[in-house]
């Protein structure tokens, strides 16, 4: 079975630098034991001090490379002289050492002596061609060798460039592709063995062209970044922010090394030039965010922090100004054809946009075939690796290929080959509900998803929603499973979403007809950021407390109906699932979470408490938490601690520690597999489903509340809680301890819901809560009043 993937159960990473260590950490996130080796530390008592130090450092790094600090225990650090034998039972050895071919060769020679037959060896090189790396190696080694190029930081950047050589065995490529996809959650893009592979090859061109034209256009740094921003779907760092993030001092080195490995006639060489401003910034120590600043720097003026940007000509810093560029303003006002509007302008903003994008598009179009099989890989690499919302070909489709080709022609530039052969057709099209791309042969071919990948985007191409309103839709995702998708701004929860949940419940009925189960999930960055605060604020502003109470009551009833539905409801959160979004998952029969899910009951941040059953459900879980001492008080205290500090999990794994997820809830590493996994979970549950039994609460009442409030006052004394925190915490404590009851009373779920409602509305009448909500709405940051 030469092409069949094999299992990877143990991994080794050689080289514990920034990348190596973080790759090792991410292997543990997939639950695998990892050997992490580095050279012997000079003059240290512990010969493995370097690798051990790297693990210690990983635990302090932000954003955290480990999804749970516990994962550090899965790493076995060692050194390359004493511990080489640890590699003997590893299924995959990743080399992530210095980019020096000689040193790599020496290491590979030593690996040949210890690695087990059939184990896979890969390099994380970003610059050295595979064919050079395998020089002098055995045939077996050459067969088992590939390049796996991770992007920094490996836990968070989705791109993994996978390069196999002519001699690489098919099972090696397939094993890596599958493992990195399913277990590491990477967006695996297969590249050819060419310099810089895909992402850095195109990305470097983009940055260089952007730098060159920014200097020529006369735009300020902040203006250039505004243009190279939202309208192009580039990350909020823009161009110069990205230079600062990557490290400006790295740029000359990386670009000259890239250029030297490219042919004389490569267009990148044509763009490459010395930049006086880069030289000056490096000379003066402005190397980027890791230094004292770069194109941007923060200065302090008393308590106020001021963001400044450098003048590209003079090198002097000025306060960042509000950007207003006619072409950009026009583009931003025009959602549909914004980018074309921008490029059609005549001002400096439009010139910069063209100067940056035209060479980048041309480069990408002309390299398809050389660096990758199809344009799909190029788009994916830029999206996964550079955080672009759209790949270069998707952007060209937005602009219009005919118009764009005409622009190249009119401006005296060669029309990129692939763009010319598109002849006005789009690079992508949808045919009979199937997404297709334009191949080098001039025909369209299906974009094929890996098995186990289910995207709402694909379902939408081939079907109509079962129901739809302004904020949510219901989709048939096959096999009798309905998917409820949120579509409001930031997926905030509003009356339309509540309506749609009701519709889903009615549609599925008892779950014995056409429909068996409900999955709640979406393709967006965030599952849901919680209730629509703007609506809440508006209702508060018109003193609409009756309407608000009704809104809370409706939500409670709808969530309760979800929990006790006669069919399974599986939530599939990814990204942020906060407040009301978190409460939906708490009411689900099961959760299938993406590994990068940030769950939290964060209501206290805006001066309220969870009102849609969040207090009730988390408390119910803590009451049966086997890790807590018996009796209600520890459970109440634990719940109070989590909610009163608005704890948000930094991963799905951590959400289990916080009890936002149950041990039985599933985690998907790959975002694209989440929906299919959730659907599978739902179908399994549906086979023999009975709804849960309601919880009865025995709570401590006023005495318990006194204890909680004392703890809060200690926090105030210690300066960890504010005056208004005390008010909010008091309301929370009332709910969690059962309100005004005797110790012997038994409370139902509805009783707790009533307490939640009462506390919620009472808090909304306070100026402190109003101020918190207002600040959150205007600045996006919590107010600590």
């Amino acid at each position, binding site marked *: 079975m030469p092409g069949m993937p094999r299992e990877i159960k143990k991994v080794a990473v050689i080289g514990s630098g920034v990348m190596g260590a973080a790759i090792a950490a991410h292997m543990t996130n997939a639950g695998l034991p990892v050997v992490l080796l580095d050279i012997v530390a000079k003059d240290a008592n512990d010969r493995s001090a370097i690798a051990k130090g790297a693990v210690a450092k990983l635990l302090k790094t932000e954003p955290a490379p480990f999804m749970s600090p516990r994962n550090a225990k899965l790493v076995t650090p060692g050194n390359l002289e004493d511990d080489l034998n640890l590699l003997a039972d590893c299924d995959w050895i990743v080399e992530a050492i210095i980019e020096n071919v000689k040193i790599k060769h020496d290491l590979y020679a030593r690996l040949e002596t210890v690695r087990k037959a059939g184990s896979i060896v890969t390099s994380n090189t970003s610059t050295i061609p595979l064919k050079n790396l395998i020089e002098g190696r055995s045939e077996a080694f050459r067969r088992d060798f590939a390049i796996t190029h991770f992007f920094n930081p490996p836990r968070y950047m989705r791109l993994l460039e996978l390069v196999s050589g002519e001699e690489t065995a098919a099972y090696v490529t397939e094993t890596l592709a599958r493992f990195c996809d399913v277990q590491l959650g990477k967006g695996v893009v297969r590249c050819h063995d060419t310099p810089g592979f895909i992402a850095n090859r195109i990305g470097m061109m983009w940055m260089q062209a952007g730098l060159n034209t920014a200097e020529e256009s006369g735009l300020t740094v902040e203006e250039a970044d505004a243009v190279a921003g939202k309208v192009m779907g580039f990350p909020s760092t823009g161009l110069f922010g990205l230079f600062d993030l990557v490290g400006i001092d790295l740029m000359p080195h990386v670009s000259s090394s890239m250029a030297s490995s490219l042919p004389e006639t490569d267009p990148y060489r044509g763009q490459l030039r010395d930049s006086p401003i880069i030289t000056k910034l490096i000379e003066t120590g402005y190397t980027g965010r890791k230094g004292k600043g770069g194109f941007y720097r923060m200065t302090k003026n008393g308590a106020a922090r001021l963001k400044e940007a450098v003048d590209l000509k003079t090198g002097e810093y000025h306060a960042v100004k509000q950007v207003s560029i006619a072409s950009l303003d026009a583009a931003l006002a025009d959602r549909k054809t914004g980018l074309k509007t921008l490029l059609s302008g005549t001002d400096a903003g439009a010139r910069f946009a063209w100067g940056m994008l035209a060479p980048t598009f041309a480069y990408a179009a002309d390299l398809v075939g050389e660096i990758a099989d199809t344009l799909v890989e190029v788009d994916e690499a830029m999206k996964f690796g550079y955080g672009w919302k759209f790949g270069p070909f998707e952007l060209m489709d937005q602009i219009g290929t005919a118009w764009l080709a005409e622009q190249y022609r009119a401006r005296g530039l060669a029309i990129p080959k692939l763009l010319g052969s598109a002849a006005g057709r789009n690079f992508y099209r949808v045919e009979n509900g199937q997404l297709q791309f334009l191949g080098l042969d001039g025909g369209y071919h299906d974009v094929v998803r890996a098995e186990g990948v289910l995207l709402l985007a694909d379902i939408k191409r081939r079907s109509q929603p079962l129901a739809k309103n*302004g904020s949510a839709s219901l989709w048939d995702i096959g096999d009798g499973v309905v998917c409820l998708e949120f579509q409001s701004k930031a997926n905030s929860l509003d009356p339309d979403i509540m309506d749609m949940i009701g519709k889903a419940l009615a549609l599925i009925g008892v779950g014995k007809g056409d429909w068996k189960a409900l999955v709640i999930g979406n393709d967006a960055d965030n599952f849901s950021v919680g209730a629509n605060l*703007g609506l809440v*604020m*508006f*209702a*508060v*502003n*018109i*003193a*609409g*407390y*009756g*309407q608000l109470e009704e809104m809370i009551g409706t939500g409670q009833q709808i969530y309760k109906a979800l929990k006790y539905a006669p069919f399974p409801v599986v939530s599939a959160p990814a990204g942020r699932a906060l407040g009301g979004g978190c409460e939906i998952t708490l009411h689900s029969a099961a959760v299938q979470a993406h590994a990068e899910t940030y769950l939290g009951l964060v209501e206290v941040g805006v001066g309220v408490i969870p009102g849609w059953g969040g207090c009730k459900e988390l408390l119910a879980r803590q009451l049966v938490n086997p890790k807590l001492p018996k009796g209600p008080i520890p459970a109440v205290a634990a719940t109070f601690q989590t909610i009163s500090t608005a704890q948000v999990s930094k991963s799905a794994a951590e959400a289990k520690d916080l009890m936002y997820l149950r041990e039985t809830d599933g985690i998907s590493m790959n975002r694209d597999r989440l929906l299919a996994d959730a659907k599978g979970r739902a179908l399994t549950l549906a086979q023999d489903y009975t709804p849960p039994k309601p919880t009865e609460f025995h709570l401590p009442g006023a005495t318990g509340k006194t204890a909680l409030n004392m703890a809060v006052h200690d926090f105030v004394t210690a300066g960890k809680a504010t005056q208004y925190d005390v008010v909010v915490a008091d309301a929370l404590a009332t709910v969690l301890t059962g309100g005004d009851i005797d110790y012997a009373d038994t409370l139902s779920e509805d009783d707790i819901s009533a307490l939640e409602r009462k506390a919620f509305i009472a808090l909304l009448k306070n100026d402190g809560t*109003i101020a918190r909500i*207002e600040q959150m*709405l*205007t600045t996006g940051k919590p107010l600590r009043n």
Partner: protein
Amino acid sequence: MPTYTAPLDNFRFVLNDVLQVGDVFARLGLTEATPDLLDAVIEEAGKFCENEIQPLNLSGDTDGCTFENGVVRTPKGFKEAYDKFREGGWIGLTADPAYGGQGLPHTVSSVLDEMVSAANTSFGMYPGLSGGAYRAISQHGSQEQKDLYLPQLTDGIWSGTMCLTEPQCGTDLGLIRTKAVPDGDGTYKVTGTKIFISAGEHDLTENIIHLVLARLPEAPAGIRGISLFIVPKFLPRAENGATVAGPRNAIACGSIEHKMGIRASSTCVMNLDDATGWLIGEPNKGMRAMFTMMNAARLGVAIQGLGLAEVAYQNALAYAKDRIQGRALTGAQALDKAADPIIVHPDVRKNLLTVKSFVEGARALGLWVSLQLDIEEHATDPKEREAANDLLALMTPILKSYFTDAGFEATNTSMQVWGGHGYIHENGVEQFVRDARITQIYEGANGVQALDLVGRKLPANMGRSLRRFFHPVAHFLEENQTDAELGEFVSPLAKAFGKLQQATGFIAQKGLVNPNEAAAASSSYLRMFALVAIGFMWARMAKVAKARAAESGVRAAFYDSKVKTARFFMTKILPETEQHFRAIMAGAKPLMDFGVEEF
């Protein structure tokens, strides 16, 4: 001949008993604005209005302004009255003492404005426009411009105008064509035609300071390309250390309009032909400067509507007591006379009380809103200033639109009491109707005010401005909900308020999806809002009046009348909110369904 008596007791009641402005001013550090001083100022102003300008009202209407050879003459007696008004320091009542003003609270100036409008609306136009120019220059002008113009405007020896409208643009100022070209020496050459310019030319002052909206060369198209310029009739010149009117500038009156009302106010076509102007504020930011003028001006127009309603009411009441015709339906009342005075008739009473309850309720509301001008200017807490500004912003379109719509209706209803005699010019009451009609139109037509309310004020900051009104009302309702004595006022207010909340939520939600929905509801919503706001003031007044009535023997009748008027409003007027509510909830479809050819 119509008469006017300044309603001093009513002012005192609102200022002292209801709003307790003395405490507010003391808190704001306006230590000189003691209740005694304010009372004296108001009394004096009342006398002036009664004795000096009211007698010119009817003759001013009859004679009108005249235009001859580019010169505009105001009606007989206006110049003398203006000089007395100026010498009395009334023009600079609220102006900065640094420029010769009296620095008194804006609330007091609102009282003055009402009395001036009631006595002689046309006369009030001249100082009113100067006030707008003063505000624009003091808030957006350079120090040099302030030093040059503010003392003269404060004194009233110079007057001001606002030159916005052009033949092709009224509501949409983005269409302005008047050009301003830099002259190289810091001045601009301004060329164009402005129409409907109130007080654009007249014989009351030595100089006229025009504030002119114009477009700079290469300014962006539309509203973002408008700049504001100072274009004086005579270029200011220093003479013996004083500023005087110098050479004539190239801005001239081409003609005056012949109008339905306010005929003693000159309404001019102004031609600018390379007139020398100075930029005020930043280039292309003229609309911002203009809006500070306009907000105050809109409140001023609202007060005009109120003042006209008051004077119309006074004359209708006098006539209803005096005119005998027929007998009361339940039996004769004035046995010594051939017939009963018509005030015995329920429908006449309804007419009178409709106007009375509007005037007194709107007066309280207007002064509550005017008080925000003082809070906004003097409060030390920025949050308090913000709240005051929010309430002002929210209530300005409501007051402008409702006070002038209801004010016009009030003059009309009052005229009705007069029967056929009301239709006769010499009796002076049809003039109130004609004078009131313009207030619904100028300074932003009332339909545009309603759009401003639902399109800008309602959604701004997630409805923050609304809070400044809804929370005090909710608080009042909560505080008094158990007071059985007040139940007859609190409970209808609570009901109407609940409907207003519902309508507000409905418009906010529908308007987000389709702006036509908000626009279709806008004028009904504005009226509903205004009625609830006036209802709120009536409930407050009833509460205060009940408390006061018990403790004051002599004035018990005054307070009793307040309670009864409150009762009339709650039972006979406030229910109009129901009708508006239903119309709002019917949505935009009944309007938008029509194809243009189907009308």
